[in-house]
């Protein structure tokens, strides 16, 4: 195990037991599992933490401001751009460990606020639209399907049961591809919503905040989860549980490796059992 841990990486003293990981599953864990099982091993079993990247901080702060905006509507408070800017400024300063900005922090900060301002102008959500839920933690016991408990936090459920997930991205997404690549997450949210309310969601929406030079907002809409989509998700969860049972933590070399924070750890893997 130690051979896989490179300099600067911080593993927990004890890895997380596989049995514990099998008890629950989330969209993030499932996506990581599908992306690369060795990455999953580093992140969720060994719990190796890495310094925050510039892109991650950008997305976190954008998300934080949107959360405050949603909460304010939920609390029937008037829209206050000055207050949101304060949340943004405070959130931006709270960087934890040093972030490698490549000298571009001021530009990134300007870009992040610009894309938020664009979103507040272009959003399809009206100022007086009361959310059904904001940042709520929900779980769905899928034991009757022989699957773990699904856990997750819903960013926003709009009035009438429209599930919204916010994304910050560098490029304008293709609608079909966005739905395909975010399918696992959207379907997880549908299951959580149905479990939490006993109702079927009215639809799902991805709100992309595009950080191009001229910021853009793209809304990708999907209908409620179909049965085949649920079946696909359940098959993926089965694979997650079976793979964990076999401790099947093999790497998946590909284009994703270029931005992977565990590349250094991965290269040290010699093909042995963990």
């Amino acid at each position, binding site marked *: 195990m130690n051979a896989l841990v490179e300099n600067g990486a911080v593993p927990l003293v004890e890895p*997380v*037991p596989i049995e*514990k*990981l099998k*008890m*629950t599953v*989330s969209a*993030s*864990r499932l996506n990581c599992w599908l992306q690369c099982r060795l990455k999953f091993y580093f992140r*969720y079993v060994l719990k190796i933490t890495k310094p925050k990247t510039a892109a991650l901080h950008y997305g976190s702060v954008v998300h934080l401001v949107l959360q405050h905006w949603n909460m304010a509507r*939920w*609390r*029937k408070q*008037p829209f206050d751009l000055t207050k949101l800017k304060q949340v943004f400024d405070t959130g931006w300063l709270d960087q934890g460990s040093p972030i490698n900005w490549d000298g571009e922090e001021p530009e990134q900060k300007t870009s992040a606020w610009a894309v938020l301002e664009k979103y507040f102008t272009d959003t399809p959500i009206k100022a*007086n639209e009361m959310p*059904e*839920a*904001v*940042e*709520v*933690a*929900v*779980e769905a016991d899928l034991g009757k399907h022989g699957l773990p*408990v699904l*856990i*997750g*936090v*819903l960013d926003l*459920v709009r009035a009438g049961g429209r599930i919204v997930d916010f994304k910050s991205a560098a490029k304008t997404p293709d609608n079909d591809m966005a739905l395909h690549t975010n399918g696992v997450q959207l379907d997880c949210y549908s299951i959580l*919503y149905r*479990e*939490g*309310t*006993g109702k079927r969601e009215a639809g799902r929406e991805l709100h992309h905040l595009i950080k191009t030079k001229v910021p853009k907002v793209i809304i990708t809409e999907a209908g409620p989860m179909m049965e085949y989509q649920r079946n696909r998700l359940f098959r993926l969860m089965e694979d997650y549980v079976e793979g964990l049972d076999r401790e099947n933590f093999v790497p998946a070399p590909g284009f994703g490796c270029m931005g992977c924070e565990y590349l250094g750890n991965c290269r040290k893997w010699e093909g042995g059992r963990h």
Partner: protein
Amino acid sequence: MITLEANYSKKLGLPGYSSHQFSVSLKSELTDISQAEQESARLYRVLQQSVDSNIQQIGFLPGEPAKPNLNGHQNGNGNGHHKPETDKWACSDKQRDLILKITDENKLDKAKVEQLAMDRFSKGVKLLNKLEASGLIEELLEQNGQSKPRNQRFGQKAGAR
């Protein structure tokens, strides 16, 4: 800021020459007077639903063995009252216990917790579904300075998120 205050009260006759009455009041803040008509209609609907759902629990009647009183949150506070046999909450048992625990530990006024649920979800605490109860719990924790970051909401579970 304009404040709209609404009250809904209902009195029902019961067997044995008894009756019971229940009323709920709430205040709503408006930013514009033009919202008054729509908000007033909403408040009426919400209050009526709340009263109707609660007043069905008739509680103790003279000449009968004591029945559980389902109005209010009287269970689990150690005041010697009988624990209701059918104290039904729409959320999960775990969520119900957590709401009661937060209320007890922070000595919150139960009427204010009920009011918060009415404000946010237009229904009483016991009628909140799991999604709504999760939102109420988060709001109660935040109001009492106990809110956890997003990635720690499932504290006891492995690798949440």
